[in-house]
């Protein structure tokens, strides 16, 4: 099985066998029928003659089928749905603590500092006595919110600019030059600069990430549009008088959905990573606000003590589950959404 030749011939053989089987089965099916029944002309049915062939192809159905066909992706989709749902349901559950309250021991009145995970505090408490379980989920909410906002902006703005860039020929030179200049500036640098200048906060981070993230998206959309724009089927559509809006939504967008979703799925982990980084530099969110960046940073400060390492590991684990699931789901969905993969 180790060589190329083997691979080719075995494939050929199996397809030949399949072909043979088909013939045999057709023969088996009809061989018992009496002679005259086999050769009777069919009745003419006018209503049946009216029925033309049509394709019951539905874009989203085909996408869904292709996606669910991939078991790993379906599994990670389930993971991400459960985690997301839990993140938002968690504060509504009974007996949940607040993310910001500092808890005191009921007997001594001293803050419960650095309590190991136990049945009362599932993820333990942090160095000033806050419940890490509540903080982790509150932080996940904050970070996912940031990521989602950035992803939506990227998808929306990037797509619109990309479509303009690709479709309006006069704008092409301008946008291309613009891209060539600004693509040279690393996003991290912009992020640092904006966070340094503006007041630290959720809006600042979202603004800084939105400022540059759409460039790559717009670029890709533009390339796709330029490639697809003048293909025969679009030319045919245009000749038949299809409106530009319909061409864009029906002919172009299906090709772009895969890219847009992939970028959106990857923008969320990226935003979380950037938030962790800015927080580390000290220009991220205010420290009392629960966010994955703040939690990882707080955990980092105590990580040299092995018994306090849980403060780093719990937020990191949640973060890793979310980012890995999003990465795999995003990639698989992008493939499922690509119409090229719908033809089997």
């Amino acid at each position: 099985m180790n060589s190329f030749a083997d691979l080719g011939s075995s494939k050929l053989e199996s397809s030949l066998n399949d072909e043979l089987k088909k013939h045999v089965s057709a023969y088996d099916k009809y061989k018992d029928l009496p002679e005259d029944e086999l050769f009777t002309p069919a009745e003419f049915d006018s209503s049946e003659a009216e029925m033309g062939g049509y394709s019951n192809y539905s874009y989203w159905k085909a996408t869904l089928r292709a996606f669910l066909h991939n078991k790993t992706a379906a599994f990670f989709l389930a993971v991400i749905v459960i985690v997301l749902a839990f993140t938002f349901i968690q504060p509504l559950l009974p007996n949940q603590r607040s993310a910001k309250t500092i808890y005191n021991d009921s007997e001594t009145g001293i803050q419960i500092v650095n309590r190991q995970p136990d049945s009362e505090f599932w993820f333990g408490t942090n160095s000033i006595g806050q419940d890490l379980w509540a903080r982790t989920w509150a932080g996940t909410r904050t970070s996912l919110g940031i990521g989602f906002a950035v992803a939506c902006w990227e998808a929306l703005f990037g797509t619109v600019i990309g479509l303009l860039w690709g479709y309006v020929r006069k704008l092409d030179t301008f946008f291309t030059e613009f891209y060539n200049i600004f693509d040279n500036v690393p996003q991290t640098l912009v992020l640092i600069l904006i966070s340094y200048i503006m007041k630290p906060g959720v809006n600042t981070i979202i603004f800084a990430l939105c400022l540059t993230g759409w460039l790559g998206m717009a670029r890709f959309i533009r390339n796709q549009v330029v490639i697809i724009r003048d293909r025969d089927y679009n030319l045919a559509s245009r000749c038949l008088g299809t409106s530009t809006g319909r061409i864009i939504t029906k002919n172009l967008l299906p090709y772009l959905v895969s890219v847009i979703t992939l970028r959106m799925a990857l923008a969320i982990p990226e935003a979380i990573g950037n938030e962790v980084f800015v927080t580390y530099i000290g220009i991220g969110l205010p420290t009392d606000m629960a966010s994955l960046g703040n939690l990882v940073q707080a955990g980092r400060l105590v990580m040299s003590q092995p018994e306090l390492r849980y403060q780093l590991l719990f937020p990191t684990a949640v973060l890793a589950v979310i980012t890995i699931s999003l990465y795999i789901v995003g990639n698989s969905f992008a493939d499922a959404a690509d119409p090229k993969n719908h033809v089997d």
Partner: protein
Amino acid sequence: MRAVIEKCNNSSKRLAEIRSINFSKGQDTVTKYISKRILHSLITLCIVIVIVLALLRQMPIEGYFNNFDKMSQTQINVTLKQLGLKDPLPVQVGRYFVQLLHGDFGTSIKYRAGYSNAKIIAQKAPLSIEIGLISLAIALILGLPLGAAMARSTRSKFKFWDRFGTVLIVIVQAIPSAVYYLLIQLYGSEWFGVSMLFSRSNYATWILPIFSLSLGNIVYYAMWLRRFMVDEANKDYIKLACAKGVSQKKIWDRHVFRNAIVPLVQYIPNSILFTLMGSLYVESLYSIPGMGGLLVQAIKIQDNTLVEALVVLYSMISVVGLLLGDILMAIFDPRISFTGKEGAR
């Protein structure tokens, strides 16, 4: 899992195309292309510096003073005037360009008051460059064999390397680098018994930061090499070579690998950028006395002029880094036809 990764690779190829440059290389000769590209970079650099300066003028003014709290309003105004910060922006930008051409990056305010920024940076830069280059080299040394092993193992029964590599790729690409750097520092120093902090004389402490910096690039190169090799291995001439009875080793080493490695050059600019930005975090994590750690420190103590100098310098390096990468690509990529050299492709 493997099917997923196979598809992941597929889509990331699409993503990476985003950064591929889009000059009409086909018609240009290489020299023309390069000179055009250099001109582009110069213009880019000027515009970027103007924008960076305009933004930096919005910095909190506390960052220009060593003892802001104790100063009266008039004192503050006088100092700002002395620094030239009350002038209109175009004047300031013009002055800054003149300064830059003289190699003057201003003087530090808090980090080392009154000391020239250029001197501070010059002391720190060599170590950063050294570490950056070593990590790029390590990325190639480890990434290429990994990619090749992955590609080869797609034809074997257990696909061990392919499975291993794909899991690694997903993990490294999906988890934010800011997080896995931390985990590498934590567990790396514990398992191998080396210090968490960098020390110049002790080479054992160089391993973890350099490995952290190169990990992203290792999987990046492995991913692309695997992809290109698998594509190459499916081509007809390889099948012919097989049919002729050329040995497997020769096919993989001489035909597949050599052809697949050429398009890999286009990912070098990206990996340079990645190393550059990674170094900001890694250097300050391990307290490496380099440029990246310096920027983080300058931001923490709010030394405006030093931040300014470093941001301008970093944008210059990234522009130059991308330029070099693109030039390298133009030279190496055989698909650009020039002066009658055998255009085998």
